[in-house]
């Protein structure tokens, strides 16, 4: 069995098992946590609309925070959008997902994907430099923050290297690329990358909480 066979076969299978196992464990465990029953009179009894709204209004900061957050928010968006483009619109990736999900859609030309990948990497590097340089970020960062950046960046980097046949033959690079994605799968449920799932319930809950008290979140 070559490295590529291993990456495409058993490693993929197990990483997916771990991904789904861990994600469900964490999500179910959190959602079933003990709830607080609030006996106070609500300002709004029906909080659903506000809760759903909050899930979406948090995509952009409030204007008064513009000066401090614009730059890093844009970097964050560059990273997330770049990553989404690379993951969801590169044809081989679409095929990968369609095999797992049965869904399929159109892709983009490869040079566009490479550009998105480069933007993603640059944004990740910028985020990392900020984490290393900024005294605030130094103070609030732990090993997992660096690990998460690394684990996110690695598949992008190895994917671009595989595409360009850099330093190694393509099958080896492809195997490394797939293995790096599997590393992401394996770590995803257990670290902060899981915010990719948690942002929805958390924003929703905050929206409900504020709405109950008659506050715009």
């Amino acid at each position, binding site marked *: 069995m070559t490295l590529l066979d291993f990456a495409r076969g058993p490693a993929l299978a197990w990483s997916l098992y771990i991904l789904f196992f*861990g994600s469900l*464990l*964490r999500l*179910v*465990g*959190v*959602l*079933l*946590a*003990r*709830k*607080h029953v*609030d*006996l*106070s*009179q609500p*300002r709004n009894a029906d909080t659903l609309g506000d809760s759903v709204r*909050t899930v979406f209004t*948090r995509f952009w*900061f*409030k*204007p*008064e*925070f513009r*000066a*401090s*957050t614009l730059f*890093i*928010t844009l970097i*964050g968006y560059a990273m997330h959008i770049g990553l989404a483009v690379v993951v969801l619109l590169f044809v081989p990736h679409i095929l990968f997902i369609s095999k797992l999900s049965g869904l399929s859609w159109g892709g983009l030309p490869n040079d566009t994907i490479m550009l998105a990948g480069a933007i993603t990497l640059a944004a990740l590097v910028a985020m990392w430099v900020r984490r290393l340089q*900024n*005294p*605030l*970020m*130094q*103070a*609030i*960062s*732990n090993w997992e*923050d660096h690990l998460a950046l690394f684990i996110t960046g690695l598949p992008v980097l190895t994917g671009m290297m595989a595409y360009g046949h850099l330093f190694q033959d393509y099958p080896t690079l492809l195997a490394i690329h797939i293995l790096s994605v599997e590393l992401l799968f394996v770590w995803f449920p*257990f670290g*902060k990358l*899981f*915010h990719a799932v*948690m*942002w929805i*319930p*958390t*924003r*929703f*809950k*905050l*929206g409900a*909480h*504020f709405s109950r*008290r*008659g*506050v*715009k*979140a």
Partner: protein
Amino acid sequence: MTVDMQLFEKFAGMIPALAERAQPPHMSDAERVEKARATFLANIDADMASEMESCIHCGHCADACHYYVPTQDPKYAPVRKFELLKRVYRRELSPLRWLHRLYTEDINADDLRKWQELVYDSCTECGRCAMICPMGINIAGMVNVMRQGLANAGIIPAEMMAMEQEQGAHGSIFGVGPTEMEQIVQDLSRKQGVEIPLNRDRADILVTTSGLDLLLYNDVLIATARIMNHLGESWTLRSDGFEAANFGLLSGYEKVQKAASERLIRAAEACGATTVIIPECGHAYPSMRWDAANLHGRQLPFRVLAISEYLGQKVKSGQLKLTPPGQGQEGHFPRSLQTRPPFGFDRRAPLGAGGTRSRLPRDGVAWRNELVLRRRRGCLPDRYRRRTAPEGLRYQDRAGRCHGRRFGGGHLRQLPAELHGGRAAGAVGQEHRIPGGTGGRGAAGNHALIKDQHHD
């Protein structure tokens, strides 16, 4: 409104002595840790669990923090303030606790002592961090649980502990108990010639006040009485339930919080009030409006309104008429006393409307002093100035609604001056500003002038 400066200085002078009156509980470090841990565990709910699973350490919250922004000191980053709670959560409640335990340190008594400064002195639970957080994490709510944990571990700042213990043991603040209250109210009523219904058996509205208003800012009480009388309401003040301030909530000590709010509940029930009005106070309102029912264990048989909320409703319904903007004087915001003092106010400022500042200078207070100085010199960093001013306006809502903002564990606490400005203005609708004097205490503080103008 005027303040008796001699009396004011007397209060200021009392602050250092407060700490000496505190009676810290004798607990071993192990007991403290176990108490704090139990409190953390008991208070973490599904919302917090979700929040603690979501934080990505992005640091945005720091840019919303009034302690971080002017100092740029990373220790004030709000995300750090609930660190101990998060550690306990990760080790004991998280679905991944078996994993987190491998690399998450447990809490110890030194941690608790170290965090005291962060959660009491370096956080006003204003909730701005919850407004900026891209994940929607209500950090202030968790800071409040941190306070509860520290309070149960006996790690409360001494001045606050003294206040909390006085209210817990005697139901009084600064020595103002039921007898003193009756005395002061009767004196005021006689001197000012304003009728103040005291200890009525039946009334629709129970108006509450605070020992501090009675002693120091008593024209607030007179103003309130004038407005209530002007509106022809059936109202009363009751000596068995008048103290709206709640140092139990402020310090995080739940037992005292519950006792304090139950006094008001009993008084309201005794006179059959359908409405309880809370004076302008950062923690009195949320304590009664949001927490009381939960501590009491059942729904309250009356509605709870802040005075500004109540006035806002009256303005809206046309029962109370205000002069339009541009005429008369502009209203002042409740916190202006603290950040834009008309009279050399300093960091020993006692009382203001709320809690954490009524203590001795610690590091957390020092920055505020610095902030005051910088503002005076006009050298506040631009980004702070730009950010804060529109903020207050932004959070305005329809009359009264603004009070519902829950900033932290259900407690509308010390918002920054500008936020309170928004609240005060919001309370009476944006079209109207309350004409007021210099350095009043917000809506309630200006009632006298409203009343006066109606008379004019």
